[in-house]
């Protein structure tokens, strides 16, 4: 008798976060996630309906324990829901095997993590090549695409550098290049500025806004209101469901912020 099979007790009715225009790239339908820890069952998500539309920049917000990390893992196809459906493009990925999920991640998702998660003792170029290795791109074509991605984040002169030889901001840019290189449907950034100083954080947000300007869908998971205001739409979570959806009226533009900073602040 697993408690996770029980219908979760839902306090209050869930809000549907479906307010975006255009084609839907990823949709969650009444998605729940429950962790069975034996003695207790943790209902991390309790019926989330969320649509991510092509080309938008979306922020998922919430305090710790709100279920935003769990939702990110499900959107990123690192995990499968206990109940409900997740549709990516026109494919239902709710019940895929770990290997099929890996292939879907490789094709559809580019991850940017708070702690960068680059391979140490591996050059920037090879780090960016990594997803291409697993999608079967080989030889010169692979390194060319990796170089192009690094050029796009302004690191074309740092190809052979190891992560330890790069600043935090530069490491995160390498991570963004790695997320881009497979031309995914969604770039999924989990607290991308959490480990960075203000200026580097703004630089990273500038880069993500630039990606969106070029038509790439960006999802930012954060608890920071300022970071979220760089997006077009904010979905707020609490206690495992969506409590609010907001279209950002006065969106922050990272490029302007960078220009307004004093030269001392922008020492880099």
């Amino acid at each position, binding site marked *: 008798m697993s408690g996770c099979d029980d219908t979760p007790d839902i306090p209050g009715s869930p809000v549907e976060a479906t307010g975006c225009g255009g084609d839907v790239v990823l949709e969650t339908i009444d998605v729940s996630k429950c962790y069975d820890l034996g003695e207790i069952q943790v209902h991390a998500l309790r019926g989330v309906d969320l649509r991510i539309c092509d080309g938008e920049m979306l922020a998922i917000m919430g305090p710790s324990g709100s279920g935003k990390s769990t939702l990110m*893992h499900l959107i*990123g196809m*690192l*995990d499968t829901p206990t109940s409900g459906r997740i549709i990516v493009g026109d494919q239902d990925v709710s019940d895929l095997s*770990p*290997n099929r999920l*890996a*292939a879907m*991640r*490789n*094709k559809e998702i580019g*991850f940017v*993590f708070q702690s960068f*998660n*680059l*391979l140490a*003792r*591996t050059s920037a170029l090879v780090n960016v090549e*990594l*997803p291409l*290795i*697993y*999608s*079967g791109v*080989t030889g010169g074509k692979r390194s060319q695409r990796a170089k192009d991605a690094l050029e796009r984040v302004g690191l074309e002169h740092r190809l052979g550098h190891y992560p330890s030889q790069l600043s935090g901001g530069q490491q995160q840019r390498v991570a963004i290049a*790695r997320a881009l290189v*497979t031309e995914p449907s969604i770039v999924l950034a989990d607290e991308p500025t959490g480990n960075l100083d203000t200026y580097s954080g703004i630089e990273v947000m500038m880069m993500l806004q630039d990606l969106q300007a070029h038509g790439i869908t960006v999802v930012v998971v954060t608890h920071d209101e300022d970071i979220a205001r760089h997006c077009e739409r904010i979905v707020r979570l609490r206690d495992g469901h969506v409590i609010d959806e907001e279209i950002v009226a006065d969106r922050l533009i990272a490029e302007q912020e960078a220009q307004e900073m004093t030269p001392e602040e922008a020492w880099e």
Partner: protein
Amino acid sequence: MNVFESIRIAFRALNANKARSILTMLGVIIGVAAVILLVAIGTGVQGDITGQIEGIGSNLLFVFPADLEGGGGGPGGGGFGGTAFAVEDAALIERRIEGLDAVVPVIEGPATAERGNRSIKTVISAGNEDVDEVFAAELAGGRNYNASEVQAGARVVGLGSTVAEELFPGQDPVGEEITIEGQRFVVIGHTEPQGGALTGDQDNQIYMPYTTAQRLLGTRDVGIIIVKASDPEEVDLKSAQITRLLRPKFGDNVTVFSQEQTLALLSTILGTLTFMLAGIAGISLLVGGIGIMNIMLVSVTERTREIGIRKAVGARTYDIMSQFVIEAVALSVAGGVIGIALGALGAWAIDSLVPTQITWWAVAMAFLFAGAVGIFFGVYPAWRASRLDPIEALRYE
């Protein structure tokens, strides 16, 4: 992802941890080198001994006046304690059994040979004029004794190469005189060296007619009769005929060994010994394999985050598994290759002390076994790595 990618990733990882990789390999290196070296020694010694026995001649039957096969416990059994043969027994065999090229009664005994102030303790090995049919030694100069010298008991001797070298350093001994047990003899021939460091010095011998030896040693006892069959196919038949012929006089106290039996017996003993050595060395290879497994398990734990990153960007179970298995196999196979090289080098280095022979089967087996050790001990850590949950792995500090 293809195999070459996995190999490249594996080698990059091994290269990043050079000291650890080499230390891990050391276990396999020592194991494989030990297998190669010990098998080379075993095979070399086996080849050396059987080579010497084959050198004595083929189609030969050795007739002993004792029950050497019936266990050592019975009366008259065990050694040469039974009734000795006489020259007449050899004559009987020659007269009554057909299809024999030579029947040689051999009388042996210790003696001291002297020339001037030089002397050497040696062994007299005496036979009849057919002796060149059954002894392996090749003449380096001079001739063997002939039938009339045997009949007359002439004081003529042939010298083994050790004796010739000791008494006539740098000279041709043929036609010279030596003294054996106080009696004077003429040297009529000397033999080429036969080697034989392991079975006693075959070159420290003096050859003479058995009639001469009987008088010199004061004995009529024939220690062994060596018979040469005309047809190698009939060796077993002749063996049976000789046993039957001598039974009325000697009962069970006659043993006939054929060359083939002696060889087979020795080969079995030495082969078993070689396998035993290889087995002991194999155990150290096994220990090396466990070392690989240990390091791979540590490596998987250490690289949990790396595995998480790889999985997040799309590595499948198979990709992670093959990466780690290939790392383990690369360690063991590289260790195997180095071990084979070291073992071969060692075998070559000690060849002057102990005969060694490197066999292809030992090399192939050591190599394959090393590879198998890598796969066997690499699969479990790799499986653990491939089963890691990407979310947990990314969280790992």
